[in-house]
């Protein structure tokens, strides 16, 4: 760029800076530093006359570096970069010196020292500015389509919002049907809406939407590329039914003679070997379970094939793979229940009448194994006494530390299920705290707490024992009354802790996003950016970011969709200015840089018979870890090159001459 010509501008910021140090003296000092062509002070550098002053100087004095000593760069760096841009200079030829937050606001009591410090900081900036250079921002076009992984209420809401905004959406769901946990619920708190009645219309909207393609019974197996241009490989698992021919009439499922435990009923009911997850399944296309199908297990039957009016059964189907090209990804893979057999003292899995809250949902549902009647699983009798145990595995150092956020409200709802099915039943609620925080939840709680024969006990059960008749006996210390109680119950309902899905870890690695201590997806910021991730173009919706009830899930999903729409409609992605850059002449291709890159942005490529590090300009987020690791100095970071940093460090260490 030839001769370095620096302009230095010292801001008074009214009395914020000018009331402590003398900005004119600092400017006077700066004017004598190497390559400084002009140095001035001004009352408010960020005001329009202040900005104009810089702009005119740039033109008049042919400046090619600008230093503004004022507030924190976190405040006005973009403002002054704009001034450079307007004057035709590359914005990265600006250097800001923080003499307000780092000097006058904290050293008011020692104004002489503060002024000395301001001068030294300006000096260091001048030394560093000698080595600044123009930075190019790379722009890549964005593919205007999105992938939504997981078809629970979060994925459904996100897919619909995206599709309604005109974006092509691919929805990948691992089960036969979309719907997630919400489809398994009988009613939803706090209003007691019928869960399927409010969910299935949305599922149908998804199925019918011209911008949405559903890949059910499928899973993501590989993700490559980067924000704006992801390549996603999806495995379509064999269903043994040609879905393009199938009309969803369901003859096959009616006539199939083989029975299997029904996952949708949390193992309580049975289904056929060829099945839909539930009657309102979307897509309404069945799958054959080869573990139970008589053709696969015994080589007999083939009833479905004979019955199918359109010849859709295909026993020879294999895995199929498709590749999708999308600009953004929304992760909506939800949660799973913590394995209750790990809470040995409660006897889940050993005693028939100890069940989970989700199993109670299934018992209460008319489509469930008991057609909506709540009974003891050991003998099918109506329970006289039901104990509902909250925080089963939650808020427990031995199991899961965090709160599940919907167990309390679910337990209150479950009181209603029991009292509705067996009005004279006694219900004991064993709780730690009742967290009825949502809109309408407290009112719901008060209403059900006040019902006859409902007892709230503050404590967790000690070991549960089974009596001969299948009922359950346990002691519990009620910390409200200080009494040790002995309870006999016909049914014990565990409101289980909540964890990420089992296969989440491998998907998370593919997406290269981090997790929190509980294993859930880590958001970009817990308060300000709860639906974004550190990976650009990848957003979070629903319980995969942490347990959430349905209202929170829906709000989160809509926010994720809005963020994705914003991202996609910008049309292009920009690289960070602080990009890693390789001096290919120095690079030996050792690959240390690639090994420390947290974003998988560096690849070692063969070129002209040697190995060279290549940076993916969109993936790189500009942390500089690679530059700090490179043994030869070939890897540098824009705006933070070794030379730039060292010249500043050295100036600060040595003091102004």
């Amino acid at each position, binding site marked *: 760029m030839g001769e370095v010509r620096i302009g230095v501008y010292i801001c008074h910021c009214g009395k914020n800076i000018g009331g402590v140090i003398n900005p004119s003296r600092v400017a006077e000092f700066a004017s004598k530093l190497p390559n400084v062509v002009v140095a001035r002070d001004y009352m408010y550098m960020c005001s329009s006359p202040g900005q104009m002053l810089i702009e005119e100087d740039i033109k008049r004095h042919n400046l090619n570096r600008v230093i503004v000593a004022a507030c*924190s760069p976190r405040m006005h760096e973009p403002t002054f970069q704009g001034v450079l841009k307007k004057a035709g200079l590359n914005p990265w030829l600006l250097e800001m010196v*923080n003499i*307000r*937050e780092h000097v006058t606001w904290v050293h*008011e009591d020692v104004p002489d020292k503060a002024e000395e410090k301001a001068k030294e900081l300006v000096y260091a900036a001048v030394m560093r500015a000698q080595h600044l250079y123009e930075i190019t921002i790379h722009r890549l076009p964005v593919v205007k389509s999105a992938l939504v992984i997981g078809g629970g209420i979060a994925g459904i809401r996100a897919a619909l919002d995206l599709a309604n905004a005109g974006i092509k959406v691919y929805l990948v769901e691992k089960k036969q049907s979309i719907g997630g946990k919400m489809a398994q619920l009988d009613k939803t708190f706090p209003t007691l809406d019928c869960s399927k009645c409010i969910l299935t219309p949305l599922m149908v909207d998804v199925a019918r939407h011209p911008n949405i393609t559903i890949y059910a019974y499928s899973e993501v197996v590989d993700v490559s590329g980067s924000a704006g241009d992801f390549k996603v490989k999806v495995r379509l698992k064999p269903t043994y039914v040609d879905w393009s021919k199938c009309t969803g009439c369901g003859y096959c499922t009616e006539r199939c003679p083989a029975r299997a435990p029904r996952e949708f009923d949390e193992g309580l009911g049975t289904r056929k070997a060829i099945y839909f997850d539930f009657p309102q399944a979307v897509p309404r296309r069945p799958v054959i379970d080869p573990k139970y199908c008589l053709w696969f297990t015994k080589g007999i039957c083939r009833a479905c094939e004979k019955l199918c009016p359109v010849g859709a059964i295909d026993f020879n189907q294999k895995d199929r793979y498709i590749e999708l090209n999308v600009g953004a990804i929304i992760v909506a893979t939800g949660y799973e229940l913590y394995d209750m057999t790990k809470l040995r003292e409660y006897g889940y899995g050993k005693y028939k009448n100890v069940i989970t809250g989700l199993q109670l949902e299934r018992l209460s549902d008319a489509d469930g194994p008991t057609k909506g009647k709540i009974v003891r699983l050991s003998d099918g009798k109506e329970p006289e006494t039901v104990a509902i145990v909250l925080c089963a595995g939650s808020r427990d150092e031995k199991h899961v530390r965090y709160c599940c956020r919907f167990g309390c409200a679910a337990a209150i709802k479950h009181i209603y299920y029991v009292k509705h099915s067996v009005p004279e039943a006694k219900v004991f609620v064993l709780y730690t705290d009742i967290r009825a925080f949502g809109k309408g939840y407290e009112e719901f709680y008060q209403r059900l707490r006040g019902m006859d024969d409902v007892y709230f006990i503050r404590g967790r059960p000690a070991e549960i024992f089974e009596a001969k008749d299948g009922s359950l006996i346990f002691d519990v210390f009620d910390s409200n009354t200080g009494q040790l109680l002995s309870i006999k119950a016909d049914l014990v309902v565990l409101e289980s802790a909540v964890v990420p899905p089992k296969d989440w870890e491998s998907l998370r690695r593919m997406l290269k996003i981090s997790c929190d201590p509980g294993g859930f997806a880590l958001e970009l910021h817990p308060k300000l950016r709860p639906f974004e991730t550190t990976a650009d173009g990848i957003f979070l919706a629903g319980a995969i970011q942490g347990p959430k009830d349905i209202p929170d899930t829906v709000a989160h999903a809509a926010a994720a969709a809005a963020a994705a729409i914003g991202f996609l409609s910008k049309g292009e992605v920009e690289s960070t200015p602080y990009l890693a850059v390789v001096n290919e002449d120095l690079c030996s291709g050792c690959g240390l840089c690639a090994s420390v890159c947290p974003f998988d942005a560096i690849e070692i490529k063969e070129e002209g018979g040697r190995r060279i590090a290549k940076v993916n300009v969109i993936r790189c987020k*500009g*942390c*500089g870890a690679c530059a700090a690791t490179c043994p030869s100095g070939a890897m540098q970071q824009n705006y*933070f090159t070794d030379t730039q*940093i060292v010249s500043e460090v050295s100036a600060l260490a040595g003091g102004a001459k």
Partner: protein
Amino acid sequence: MGERFEPRIVVFACNWCSYAGIDLAGVSRIKYPHNVRIVKVMCSGRVHPEMVLKALVDGADGVLITGCHPGDCHYISGNYKTMRRYLLLRKLLRQLGLEERVRLEWISASEGDRWAKVATDFVEHIRRLGPLRLKEVMSAE
């Protein structure tokens, strides 16, 4: 008695947590010794051990490296790299008798008060150790 020794201290601060925390001390008008000079980097993981040594050689009496708390790194794992690199650097510094002159501290964006305390402690600590004068020693040789 002569004038009180005023150490010269170079601080590396990551953009996302520590620099913001140091700014917050300013916004909250929390006072701390003037001796610290901040060098902004995007991530503490950018700090090469040579930069720390360079600061000491060129006249700093102490160096502070600051970054996000473990688990909070804006770049996922930069601070863990800093931690590992710092432990190696300390081994080297121990050989040179300079171990006490360099510290690693985690300062979050909300810890303006903590930053002021860290800065005050470190300045006091270096003041007790006295001037380093590596620069004079090296140029005399």
